[in-house]
């Protein structure tokens, strides 16, 4: 049924539909409305789950971790500082191979403080062993959370679903919330897995000299994840008529210049790309939806035809550059691709990325013969 709701509400409805059993979360702007709505669902019994009012995000993730080892379907949501505080436990969750699903509402990291959208918070968790999705609409947020549970429970790895603070989290738009029975069909109860069991005692996560072997298993499963994500996306389409893919190309087939970005900026890019198309300039847009595991092969394929690519990063690794840009370049190196990759940092701290900004990015990319330093858009004077 279609509703006009915010993406944060969309997250909450999705978690209710997924029938999470244990939810432990801590409020933080701009995620708070998720916690509020979910605690409401749990209090009213609309969702038959235990809601733990933890005293910090470190505990929120720790509770999800242990509840998951005990066999429950778990959920948490956070943002920026909260996600950063979970960092240590994020490593545990993946190392213990737990199908936890988390929503992260992207927000800039302190210091200084800024409450607005910035992907650096989740991207700086890129080495923690979590799958990472980046969404661009309330609908995609709902669908991705449902898909994530399925993927996580097949793969036994945790999944982080990211949506930009305010720009997406607080924007109301039309979301088709499917019937519960359809969701149940797509997402049955979790398949059985090793868990705490007084009848078969085992110790989880102890010290080991086989560390490298377990890391290798995680590596292998991350490779498998790409396949699983495509499969469940396809199945999802079969049932709900919507699919997303791992990368979302727009008019890329014949494009000379491809704008590459993640999250909401992609929508605005399409608007501007179309304008340039009418001017006869072959511009395409490639949105990266799945960042972990990083779909390097698909990136290479998507850029095969293009002469230039402009990566727009709403994130920044100090002393390195835009994170998407770096990983894209790494994927291209040695692949024989000739594409020139131009790097742009834009929209940090929720700075609005306007059609004008995107226009400038395109102009800049067209005019420069080869990439120079990364260009920063929208600095305030």
């Amino acid at each position, binding site marked *: 049924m279609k509703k006009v709701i915010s993406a944060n509400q969309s997250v909450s409805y999705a978690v209710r539909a997924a029938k999470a059993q244990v939810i432990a979360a801590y409020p933080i702007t701009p995620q708070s409305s998720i916690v509020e709505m979910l605690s409401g669902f749990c209090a009213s019994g609309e969702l038959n789950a235990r809601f733990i009012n933890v005293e910090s995000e470190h505990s929120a993730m720790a509770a999800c971790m242990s509840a998951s080892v005990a066999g429950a379907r778990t959920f948490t949501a956070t943002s920026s500082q909260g996600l950063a505080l979970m960092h240590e436990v994020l490593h545990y969750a993946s*190392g*213990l*191979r737990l199908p936890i699903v988390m929503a992260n509402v992207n927000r800039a990291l302190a210091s200084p403080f800024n409450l607005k959208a910035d992907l650096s918070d989740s991207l700086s968790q890129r080495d923690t062993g979590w799958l990472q999705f980046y969404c661009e609409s309330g609908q995609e947020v709902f669908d991705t959370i449902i898909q994530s549970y399925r993927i996580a429970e097949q793969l*036994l790895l945790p999944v982080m679903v990211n949506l930009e603070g305010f720009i997406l989290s607080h924007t109301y738009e039309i979301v088709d919330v499917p019937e519960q029975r359809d969701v149940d069909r797509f997402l049955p109860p979790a398949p059985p897995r*090793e868990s705490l069991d007084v009848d078969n005692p*085992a*110790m*989880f*996560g*102890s*010290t*080991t000299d*086989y560390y490298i*072997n*377990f890391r290798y*298993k995680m590596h292998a499963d991350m490779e498998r994840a790409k396949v699983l994500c495509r499969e469940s996306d396809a199945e999802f389409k079969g049932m709900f008529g919507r699919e997303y893919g791992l990368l979302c190309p727009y008019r890329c087939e014949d494009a000379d210049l491809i704008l590459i970005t993640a999250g909401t900026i992609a929508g605005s890019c399409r608007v501007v790309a179309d304008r340039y198309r009418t001017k006869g300039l072959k511009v395409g847009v490639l949105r990266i939806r799945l960042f972990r595991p990083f779909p390097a092969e698909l990136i290479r394929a998507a850029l095969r035809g293009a002469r230039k690519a402009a990566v727009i990063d709403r994130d920044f690794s100090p002393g390195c550059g835009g994170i998407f840009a770096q990983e894209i370049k790494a994927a291209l190196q040695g692949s024989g691709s000739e594409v020139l990759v131009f790097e742009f940092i834009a929209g940090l701290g929720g700075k609005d990325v306007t059609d004008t900004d995107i226009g400038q990015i395109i102009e800049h990319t067209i005019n420069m013969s080869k990439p120079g330093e990364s260009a920063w858009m929208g600095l305030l004077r």
Partner: protein
Amino acid sequence: MLPITAISFITTEGNETGEWRSQRPVLDQEKCNRCGLCWMYCPDNAVRPAGDVFEISYTYCKGCGICAQECPKGAILIVKEER
């Protein structure tokens, strides 16, 4: 074949910590009154009820000396471990 991550199922009973021992407790069944304190206080479960007596398992005994120290009857003697 390894599990998906470090999940332990096998008990430590294969680890013969008696090897660590530099002194050895010797239990004199004559003096023993079966009070079970040595069994109760042994950190390594090396004292075990066997039928109606207690025996010391040198497979595990680390030679801490607690049993001898706590035995109310002085029934346990600590001697140097000779290997």
